[in-house]
């Protein structure tokens, strides 16, 4: 029997889900994110049996994890948790890594204290859907005063068209602890539609130091990903978050970082690479709820094909949050004449005595840079690849994670190779 807090929350969410129509996100100008092509009725949760080894799963999982030693691992395929693992020594020190479904039973108080503290079913149809329907899920709890260097890994895998995956990750890094959390959303290339509706919440408790990375690569299928990810940072805690978007037919993301108490510090460095007819819509908010907090957000993207990408980044400093020091920058790079990008930084400041700045650009690779590299013997295409890699380097190195950095670099290189002819032509024409 699930505890009543969860039942109530699911019921409330279901009401919202049933009441709300499928949304369309419109913004001033040409930008609209519409789900009219999504055939929601044809999608449903898919259940799978657990596996004994990751090799039994779609190779996209091992391709991304590359056999790295992990502090803990949860893999959810469709609606089912199919693999879990946790370093026994760390478990002995109190580390919890398990499906959220199980944590609700086994760590009821802990889950109840944090569950959906910063997420709400009232935010819309899809946040309500994931709150109402999630199964499996991930729960990560890092107890006080321990330092874990190896990654804590959550994987959401969709490998069949027709799948609707409702996901929920809840993570808490308790006081004075250090941890590295990664959440990957992966799919092989397939034909047909799928949906991932996800909720993610991370609580960085006082004086904790947390690294967080998201990798989304849904492959070439028609995966629609509508997710909300929220990070709360308590007093004197630090969180460095690197979300990476490498593919999905339609992606609508709400990413929020909240510096909730004095001394909280966040670094938010994201990147995306869209191709073909992909559509990506990311809205980040750096919410400073208290003064004496610091923030730094840099988001960079590149587009090929006929893809569309919009990044909107908001810095919000609430009334009374003085002595806040924050900065937001976004850049998009167009690599195709048919791609469209939007980069919109904005600022809401309701107090005085803060330092906040923001900027946004949409740019292109310079033929002059390509020529310069060619005069050093580097062929055009490789020059373009190096320039794009160099453009992203600022973000990628923030990962400070050799394995994931290699994955990201390789995939970007692969995408550039695929779009080579088009990119080359485009740069030469201008």
């Amino acid at each position, binding site marked *: 029997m699930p505890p009543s807090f969860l039942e109530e929350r699911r019921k409330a969410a279901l009401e919202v889900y049933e009441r709300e129509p499928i949304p369309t996100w419109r913004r001033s100008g040409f930008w609209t994110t519409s789900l009219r092509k999504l055939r929601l009725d044809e999608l449903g949760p898919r259940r799978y049996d657990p596996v004994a080894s990751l090799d039994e799963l779609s190779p996209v999982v091992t391709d991304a994890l590359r056999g790295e030693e992990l502090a803990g691992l949860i893999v959810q395929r469709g609606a089912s948790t199919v693999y879990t693992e946790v370093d026994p020594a760390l478990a002995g020190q109190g580390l919890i890594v398990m499906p959220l479904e199980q944590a609700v039973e086994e760590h009821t108080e802990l889950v109840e204290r944090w569950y959906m503290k910063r997420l709400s079913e009232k935010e819309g149809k899809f946040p309500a859907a994931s709150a109402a329907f999630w199964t499996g899920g991930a729960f990560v709890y890092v107890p006080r005063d321990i330092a874990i260097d190896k990654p804590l890994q959550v994987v959401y895998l969709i490998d069949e068209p027709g799948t609707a995956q409702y996901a929920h990750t809840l993570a808490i890094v308790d006081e004075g602890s250090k941890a590295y959390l990664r959440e990957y959303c992966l799919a092989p290339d397939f034909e047909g539609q799928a949906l991932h509706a996800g909720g993610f919440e991370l609580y960085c408790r006082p004086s904790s130091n947390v690294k967080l990375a998201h990798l989304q690569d849904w492959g070439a299928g028609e995966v629609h990903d509508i997710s909300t990810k929220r990070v709360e940072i308590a007093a004197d805690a630090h969180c460095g978050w690197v979300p990476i978007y490498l593919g999905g037919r339609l992606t609508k993301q709400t990413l929020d970082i909240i510096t909730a108490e004095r001394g909280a510090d966040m670094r938010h460095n994201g990147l995306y690479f869209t191709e073909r007819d992909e559509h990506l819509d990311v809205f980040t908010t750096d919410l400073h709820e208290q003064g004496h907090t610091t923030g730094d957000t840099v988001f960079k993207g590149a587009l090929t094909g006929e893809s569309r990408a919009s990044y909107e980044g908001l810095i919000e400093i609430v009334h009374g949050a003085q002595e806040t020091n924050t900065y937001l920058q976004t850049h998009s790079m167009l690599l195709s004449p048919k791609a469209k990008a939007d980069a919109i930084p904005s600022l809401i400041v309701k107090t005085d005595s803060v330092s906040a700045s923001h900027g946004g650009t949409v740019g292109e690779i310079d033929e002059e840079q390509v*020529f310069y590299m060619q005069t*050093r*013997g580097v*062929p*055009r295409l*490789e020059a373009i690849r*190096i320039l794009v890699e*160099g453009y992203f*380097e600022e973000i990628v190195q923030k990962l400070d994670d050799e394995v994931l950095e290699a994955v990201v670099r390789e995939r970007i290189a692969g995408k550039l190779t695929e779009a080579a002819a088009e990119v080359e032509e485009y740069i030469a024409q201008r």
Partner: protein
Amino acid sequence: MSLEIKNLHVRTEEKEILKGVDLVVRRGETHALMGPNGSGKSTLANTIMGNPNYEVTEGQILLNGEDITEAEPDERARAGVFMAFQYPATIPGVSVANFLRTAVNAKREEPISVKEFGQILRANMELLKVDPQFTSRYLNEGFSGGEKKRAEILQMAMLKPEFAVLDETDSGLDIDALRIVADGVNALRGPEMGTLIITHYTRILNYVRPDFVHIMLDGRIVREGGPELADHLEEQGYDWIREEVGAGAA
């Protein structure tokens, strides 16, 4: 072994810039190309490298007898032609060391070993008195004028071209830096390399003595001579040449 420019006519979208340039640089020779601002020196350098902004409407560029007029810039580079830019581009996110390795490897079948690369790089950095930290910086990003020029010569040293065009590498260098760069060029030139130094000043030519001096005016080479021609220019400026050329034309 030579780099040969034959009756080269070059234009941009707007206008004709080079109006028939002939120039031969053989391996082992050092040439200086001088001329007033806007006369077409950088255009010549860029055309030698195959900059797509410049269209060759007539004439040829031959490398060791082979026509490279239509070759891609990277093919020319791999064939042994190098240019140190007057205004080098910035390459964000790519460190000097990584860039150099990529460039060195572009010419090779098998990538250079980490050890060998490190050795060559260190030797060249010593030669050019480059700070070791320099190579971890992103290429030309936030570099001072002098640092950019030094980075260009470092690239030349690593790539060991057969023919190098130095476009105002001496401009913007303080006296010490000029000396270091000149020493670097001197160490690299020799029977293996032909050098074309584009400059406005005889300063560098006092360190790197040219065998030949060419004066460009309005897209043509109008005077040629030995090093004494450069000295003469330094004293007299370009007016006398303009007058002589004008008189000749009239």
